[in-house]
């Protein structure tokens, strides 16, 4: 137990060091950082304005009013930004495999999965995350969506659960990166698929909705937490979501072990 505690502190320190190194690297390039930050804010604001304009005119979207649609979008951003903030290493993973530099990660006294996922932390995402969280708190406090204490509790549990599903999906992307050197933008496909959760998944046809819940669980990631907060998700679905994330995480770790065994150390 003592040893385990020590490990957690070691990994926290390593993560902190890597985060600070990444932050310093970003600071050397302030011009680029400013543009990226501006782009992220602009993308968020313009899509939000678009949703308000659209649902403001139509009054409802798949049965949801404008405030509810906005809340779905805010929750999508919350899950999306936290996972990008913590798991940015995945975006830089493939070159390690192609060049064989992954060998250096394997030989270090650190869990290679941890190193691969968290070797880069995007501090710019943290800068966008803080105002977003404040906005969500303000949004809820001003009563724009009706909720209860249980709803808030379910929301927090399901956001955490969504992050576990996101972690599992990022691990799967890493595994495919190890197994094939051909696919270099799988993470962007993941991003595009999760982007389908910017709006409530109820707008999609049943077969697509099923796909987005059971196969690539974008619904569990992005839509379920907001639905739970608004009291629109039964406890059975909450349990299902937690079960699904456990299965996904377990499966992804098994897949990672399988992929590692097949790493060929090409080019090194």
């Amino acid at each position, binding site marked *: 137990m003592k040893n385990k505690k020590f490990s957690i502190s070691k990994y926290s320190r390593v993560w902190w060091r890597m985060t600070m190194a990444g932050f310093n690297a970003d600071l050397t*390039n302030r011009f680029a950082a400013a*543009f990226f930050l*501006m782009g992220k804010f602009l993308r968020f604001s313009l*899509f939000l304005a678009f949703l308000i*304009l659209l649902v403001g*005119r139509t009054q409802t*979207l798949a049965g949801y009013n404008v405030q509810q649609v906005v809340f779905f979008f805010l929750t999508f951003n919350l899950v999306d930004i936290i996972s990008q903030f913590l798991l940015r290493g995945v975006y830089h993973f493939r070159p390690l495999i192609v060049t064989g530099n992954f060998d250096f990660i394997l030989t270090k006294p650190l869990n290679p999965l941890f190193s691969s996922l968290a070797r880069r932390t995007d501090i710019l995402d943290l800068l966008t995350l803080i105002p977003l969280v404040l906005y969500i708190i303000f949004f809820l406090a001003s009563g724009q969506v009706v909720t209860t204490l249980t709803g808030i509790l379910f929301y927090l549990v399901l956001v955490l659960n969504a992050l576990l599903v996101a972690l599992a999906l990022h691990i799967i992307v890493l595994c495919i990166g190890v197994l094939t050197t051909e696919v270099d*933008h799988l993470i962007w496909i993941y991003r595009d698929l999760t982007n389908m959760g910017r709006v409530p998944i109820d707008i999609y046809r049943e077969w697509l909705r099923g796909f987005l819940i059971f196969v690539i669980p974008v619904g569990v990631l992005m839509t379920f937490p907001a639905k739970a907060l608004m009291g629109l998700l039964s406890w059975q679905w909450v349990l299902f979501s937690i079960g699904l994330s456990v299965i996904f995480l377990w499966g992804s770790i098994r897949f990672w072990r399988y992929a590692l065994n097949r790493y060929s150390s090409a080019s090194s």
Partner: protein
Amino acid sequence: MKKYLQVFKITFKEYFVYRLNFLLWRVRNVAQLLVLYFLWQAAIPEGQTVFGYDQTKMLTYILGVSIIRSFVLASRSVEVASDIATGDLSNFLLKPLGYFRYWFTRDIADKILNFSLAVIEITLVIFILHPPLVFQKSLHLLFLTLLAVGVGTILYFYFSLLLAMIAFWSPENSWSPRFLFLIVLEFFAGGLFPLDILPGLVFRSLSFLPFPYLLFFPLNVYLGKLTSGEILFGLSVGLVWVFLFYRAVKFTFQLGLKNYTAWGR
């Protein structure tokens, strides 16, 4: 001309080296298309009109944008920035090859391939989802749509080159302004929604900027929503922007070359 034909063929063949990679790239486009398709289908129920669009016109717009985007916005000229940053530009300056023509040829190869796959994807979407669509029968409007697509294509080419040339002055930072530009483009070119749903003053102001002439304007010509005068006005503004960007690219390239040090060579 022969050498550019070879450049075209080589660019085309490059995609078939990593076939799975390229096909998966297209999956991204389908995912983006499905979000917009279902969003607008849910927003405008059958028989209703929102923002002056019924479901048929809006779904035609969304699918049409996807096709036009695959041609107008498909581009390889983003790589010009890396040529400048790595010093590879020197290789081109020494060759008997027009640098802009070289990249335009690569762009065209990229556009044709993307367009062909987009047509297949949209055909599948139509086959599976059976959306109500507007099929333009007027040859006159179809011709004008092609003309507008041509203007948009050349405009985007110069736009893209100009952005890449930031690398002359800031070789490590050329991607971040492009990132910002792509976000602005997504909203103000009409890729997400038809621009005429915006408040009147905003829409009228936008019509003097280059963005609408990339996607929104060609699609509106196709849908038959514009009068002859409006089409003429749109084509004229688009051409003025093409001319301005052409001059800006020429000027910036000459200025950039004076600053270029073939760093890393």
